[in-house]
């Protein structure tokens, strides 16, 4: 695979193949962390935003992009352009299927504190711990199907 001649759409396809290092059921594209892909005269420039700033997978993701798209430049953008609302619809569905409750849209979350169990769909759940195995997840418990589950934080 050579970078020369890659079209923007092809770059997006390649990026779609890079799994999130901690939750491999979703890709970096599903997560919405690829902010832009720019192809100029055969040179590929990719802008990428971290989910959480303390995410230990940050360097790993950057390297994975560089390996997948040879010769590309990757810029890490530390601004406020990523929120959990950037996770795609496909990404949310993949998370739910894997047993992670996807983050509620910010506007919904601000108005209601309803959290749905990813297994049985019940909203009869309670918070066990705001913090979980990674910065992006909380721990909840479903009082309906009696199953603990991981809830993506809405940020």
């Amino acid at each position: 695979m050579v970078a020369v001649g890659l079209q923007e759409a092809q770059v997006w396809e390649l990026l779609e193949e890079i799994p999130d290092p901690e939750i491999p059921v979703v890709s970096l594209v599903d997560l919405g962390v690829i902010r832009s892909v720019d192809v100029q005269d055969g040179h590929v420039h990719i802008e990428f935003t971290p989910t959480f700033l303390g995410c230990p997978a940050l360097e790993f993701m950057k390297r994975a992009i560089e390996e997948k798209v040879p010769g590309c430049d990757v810029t890490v953008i530390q601004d406020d352009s990523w929120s959990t609302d950037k996770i795609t619809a496909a990404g949310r569905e993949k998370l739910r299927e894997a047993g992670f409750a996807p983050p509620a849209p910010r506007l919904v979350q601000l108005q209601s504190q309803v959290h749905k169990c990813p297994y049985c769909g019940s909203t009869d759940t309670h918070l066990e711990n705001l913090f979980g195995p990674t910065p992006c997840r909380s721990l909840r418990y479903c009082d309906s199907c009696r199953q603990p589950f991981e809830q993506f934080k809405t940020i």
Partner: protein
Amino acid sequence: MNEPALLSIADDELFLGWRESEWTGIAPMLEEDVAFSSIAQNEIGHARALYQLVVGEDGDADALAFDRPLEEYRCAPLVELHLLDWAHTIARRWLYETADEIRLAALKDSDDPAVAGLAAKIDREETYHRMHAEMWHDRLKDEPRFQEAVADLWPYALGMLPEEQRGELAVRTGQVFPSDNLSLGHERGAHTDDLAPMWEEMTEVRRSAPAGAQW
């Protein structure tokens, strides 16, 4: 945005992150073990992002974090304290997050888009730290032991903020200070004896390989 102000916040987040990580494995309950570990990870991530902003995209954030002489660190004495008591630990969390929200709000209004953007991103994550701190505050606020801890740390908390933001901190925390003297705090630059041992532990591995280790 001036560099000393960004470094002050970065140093606060780095050293507080280190202090919070000291509860990993030994917090009074498993939930707090996880919470403090996660908060520590976030705070150190914020420090890294702020250092990177100061040194520029190709600069070495680690050098700024670990290689300065001790007297050049700009952290507030509040984050240096080696607290072994849970009441004091929670009091510091609550005071720190309350003060941090005030200064982040000011940074989000910065004319420099890079500063404002990063402050907004940090603030999103801090929302969860504040929820955690408020939950503990609500639980402990009527306990004399917690009230004493807040009183002990209050002068240190004042030292986190520039004078113009201290009144707001007093309002939000319900604490008081004489209106004719805003400088009661333990000010930045006046380091406590707890800083040197923490810095030595934090930088020990890095200093053991001055030429740079390959991991």
